[in-house]
């Protein structure tokens, strides 16, 4: 080893890159407390009034309720579908398995605008008016790949002889699932529920096309972005959403790690 200390270029670069990554995420909360209507330096002063005003807006609260409904139903639907599919992929060998695995990942790579426009056309054609139902159908579609991959990793290290052992000890198939499989993959399920909820909660383009006159929160925010006077409120709302997403997903990550730890 030479005694010359090398400049850690990569570390410097990585730090700069992190700043780039966090810049937009931290700016929204920063300016949401700014006592001024223009988002620019210098910062004028600290205020909470933009947050306080949020509670008075009825359309916002409606949109919030819509988003919560859509997110919850989507999370349940996508996680159930993903749970069974992931179990099939990890546990069984069957014709068409790889095809099916590829198919459920497809929603990740189809451009959002195409999913949105084609679903709109489909739903109208079969007489389904744009509503929260159509948004839920669309969100379940885009959230499914997340549910499947989380559940797959939860099942991946799951020792198959655990189920055989339960069955060998006299449990039924259903009892084995309830007493052994479910408790062991439970953290994975929680993680999947939280992630798919967040995917739906944050999704904009599909909801924009499919929500009709029942806007979700992102659609509501989109409608507010155009009005400079509403900017501080939008910032406050955006900061709240940003924080709740990050917190939810940190919890999901905690459960995901717990699930892989307990099975290995």
């Amino acid at each position: 080893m030479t005694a010359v200390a090398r400049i850690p270029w990569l570390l410097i670069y990585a730090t700069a890159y992190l700043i780039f990554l966090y810049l937009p995420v931290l700016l929204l909360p920063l300016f949401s407390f700014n006592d001024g209507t223009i988002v620019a330096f210098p910062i004028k002063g600290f205020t909470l009034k933009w947050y306080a005003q949020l509670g008075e807006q009825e359309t916002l609260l409606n949109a919030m309720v819509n988003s919560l409904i859509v997110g919850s139903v989507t999370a349940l639907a996508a996680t159930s579908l993903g749970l069974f599919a992931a179990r099939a992929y990890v546990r069984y060998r069957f014709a068409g398995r790889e095809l099916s695995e590829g198919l459920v990942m497809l929603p990740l790579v189809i451009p959002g605008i195409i999913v949105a426009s084609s679903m709109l056309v489909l739903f109208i054609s079969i007489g389904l008016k744009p509503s929260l139902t159509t948004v839920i159908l669309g969100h379940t579609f885009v959230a499914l790949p997340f549910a499947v991959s989380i559940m797959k990793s939860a099942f991946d290290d799951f020792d198959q002889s655990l189920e055989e052992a339960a069955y060998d000890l006299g449990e039924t198939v259903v009892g084995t699932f309830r007493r052994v499989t479910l408790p062991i993959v439970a953290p994975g399920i929680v993680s999947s529920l939280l992630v798919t909820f967040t995917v739906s909660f944050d999704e904009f383009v599909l909801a924009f096309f499919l929500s009709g006159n029942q806007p979700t929160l992102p659609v509501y925010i989109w409608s507010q972005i155009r009005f400079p006077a509403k900017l501080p409120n939008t910032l406050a709302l955006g900061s709240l959403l940003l924080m709740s997403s990050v917190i939810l997903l940190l919890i999901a990550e905690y459960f995901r790690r717990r699930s892989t730890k307990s099975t290995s």
Partner: protein
Amino acid sequence: MATILKSEAGKGIALSAPASLYVGLLVAAPLGILVAYSFWTQTYVEIDRTFTWANYSEAVNDPLVRHLLIRSIAIAGAVTFATVALAYPIAYFIAFRTQKKALWLLLITIPFWSSYLLRVFSWKLILGFNGVMNSALISIGVIQEPLTFLLYNEFAVVLTLAHAWAPFAILPIYVSLQKIDRSLLEAATDLGCNRLERFIRVTLPLTVPGIIASCLIIFIPTVGDYVTPALVGGSQGKMVANLIQVQFGAANNWPLGATLSLMAMVSVGIVAILFVLLATGLGRRIR
């Protein structure tokens, strides 16, 4: 049915069927109807179901459509390149130069657990004429007049999307770097390679699959991105998705919108396939 469910294969098919049917149906049915619409025409709210190539000839002959398609693909290409080029050193750093891999991976993914719409919106505020960047630079005296090239152009779109897609580039490349057997690198050194040669002849070729994966994950959805060009693109930065949205919205011409969607999809497909062929070919050339 009972006997089918007893077999391993039967159980697998039965369990995975709901998910694959759901996705299959929601891919096939909308696409089928989209194809049908592209051969129909619309006057106000009435759909005329007689077969016609009119939408396609209109789209192909309209210089705006051609221009937007080419621009979308060019911007998506630039975004893909910028994202991967910026992300590779980070992936390399996490894989080889730090002990705190889990922490760094977490740090890098956290910003992306927030709404995409809000992040784009935030960039709009950062890059604006009276925005964060300009006001900050002016207040510390670097510039006197606000910079105008920051917002409402292709640069803003590429920057915003390179930010938006960062983890999709970092993670696949990190995985392919992490998988490299460390003794391969030692073997290369042992056989006389210096650090640069070792990187070019061993590390880089072994990460080609990861690079291709991240390129596709980024390129395909970017061509059809709507939010970023709408918020930070201005008129210079508009992309094909914005035109499609107009057809389904203000212009109320669904058949033309369907045609444009299909054309965008086909173009993406062709470019993606060409890219994969080219990249795998190039990957083999480096020895």
